[in-house]
């Protein structure tokens, strides 16, 4: 998290706000329910509650006169010499705590504001902007509310990073009810880092961990970390396993008992489907790891201490499975978190370790840290 210079903040915990109508504020949506005035009021009130839930701050609405936080919708040049830019791009801005324009929050009236995942969710943007109005600057943690780029999420909006930041200014809420903040983005150089899933995607390596994924291109030194939902809004926040079938140009994503097929950035029609469509018994509730072996055309699916072999050509499970992981892949232990295949070698990930396993000689060649791929 970051704060503004001089740690600008309100000196009192009783903060007033007023909603000023500059122009007709509600954009009528053709494809979703209209956003009525009461929906706007509710979105803004809930956005204030996000911050008051975790601090001693209390927000009082004024209907006239000057409030600490004056809220308005405006288009293009709207009176503060910080013009908006029409649809998309810049969505809103707010000023840090202070007299006059300090704390004021402006929304771009040319955006389409919603109360769901279409276009721009007013509650989420307002929560972010009120963070500024209270003294929070932008965070570089892509999972935090105060990250500058918009992304939609249904879950509780604050991350641990946001809470740490706002409480370092105002302290905690003395009557705080239990909240479930989103964990901070994983650190790629954490020596105890483990992975949820690993796959290739058109020449890049994609590594899933919590709500995020890293994208590693062979010619780039630094991996890029992004929220899963920012790229693939359709797939869940937690991925159990993933593999690429390069012949079909799809990446299969597994989470719980469902699977998704992705063709680049797009979800393949007809998905998600149940993992049991692959031929797994109904008692299997989760796939721990998956890897496609190009040389044989088989995909190995790992669940608990066993694994299955799926024939991509025939679309059926090979007979004689499941087999024991420990027996067939000696040296890697009995469970796997993630798996990958490169040039004749299988890479098994378990906890913070990575086992390089020779498929032909059937033995472990090297053991490394799971995140050695990040060159920390």
């Amino acid at each position: 998290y970051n704060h503004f210079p001089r740690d600008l903040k309100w000196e009192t915990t009783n903060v007033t706000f007023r909603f000023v109508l500059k122009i007709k504020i509600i954009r009528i949506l053709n494809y979703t329910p209209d956003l009525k005035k009461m929906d706007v009021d509710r979105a803004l009130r809930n956005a204030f509650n996000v911050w008051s839930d975790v601090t001693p701050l209390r927000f009082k609405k004024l209907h006239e006169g000057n409030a600490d936080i004056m809220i308005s919708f405006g288009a293009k040049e709207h009176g503060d010499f910080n013009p908006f830019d029409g649809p998309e791009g810049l969505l809103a801005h707010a000023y840090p705590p202070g007299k006059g324009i300090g704390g004021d929050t402006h929304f771009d009236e040319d955006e389409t504001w919603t109360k769901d995942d279409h276009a721009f969710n007013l509650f989420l943007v307002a929560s972010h902007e009120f963070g500024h109005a209270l003294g929070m600057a932008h965070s570089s943690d892509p999972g935090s509310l105060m990250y500058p780029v918009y992304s939609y999420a249904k879950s509780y909006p604050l991350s641990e990073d946001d809470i740490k930041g706002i409480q370092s200014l105002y302290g905690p809420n003395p009557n705080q009810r239990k909240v479930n903040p989103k964990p901070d983005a994983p650190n790629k150089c954490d020596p105890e880092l483990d992975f949820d899933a690993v796959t290739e995607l058109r020449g890049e390596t994609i590594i899933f961990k919590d709500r995020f994924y890293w994208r590693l291109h062979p010619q780039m030194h630094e991996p890029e970390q992004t929220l899963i939902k920012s790229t693939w809004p359709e797939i869940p926040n937690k991925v159990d396993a993933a593999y690429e079938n390069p012949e079909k140009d799809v990446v299969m994503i597994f989470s719980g008992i469902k699977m998704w097929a992705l063709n680049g950035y797009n979800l393949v029609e007809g998905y998600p489907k149940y993992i049991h469509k692959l031929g797994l018994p109904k008692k299997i509730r989760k796939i721990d790891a998956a890897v496609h072996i190009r040389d044989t055309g088989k995909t190995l699916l790992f669940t608990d201490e066993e694994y299955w072999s799926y024939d991509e050509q025939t679309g059926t499970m090979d007979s004689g499975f499941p087999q024991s992981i420990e027996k067939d892949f000696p040296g890697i232990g009995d469970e796997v978190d993630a798996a990958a295949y490169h040039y004749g070698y299988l890479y098994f990930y378990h906890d913070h370790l990575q086992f390089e396993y020779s498929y032909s000689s059937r033995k472990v060649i090297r053991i490394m840290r799971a995140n050695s791929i990040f060159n920390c």
Partner: protein
Amino acid sequence: KPLSTGEKDKEVLAKKYLRRYYGMPAGLQRAGKSSDTMYEEKIGEMQKFFRLEVTGQLDDDTVELMKMARCGVPDVAE
């Protein structure tokens, strides 16, 4: 040789973005630094903030990020 239209558009987008969100001075305000140096430094600053590979060059990932809908408050809080 002159930049192609596509490259020129990217540069225009980038300069606008960096001025707005990273305090890149316009015109002759750059105190002692050449415009190229300042431009590369600011791209690097933006790349560092967004945890991209810091190259100082306008690569596809950087341009992609500059096009995303975002808050209007500068990333450099100063």
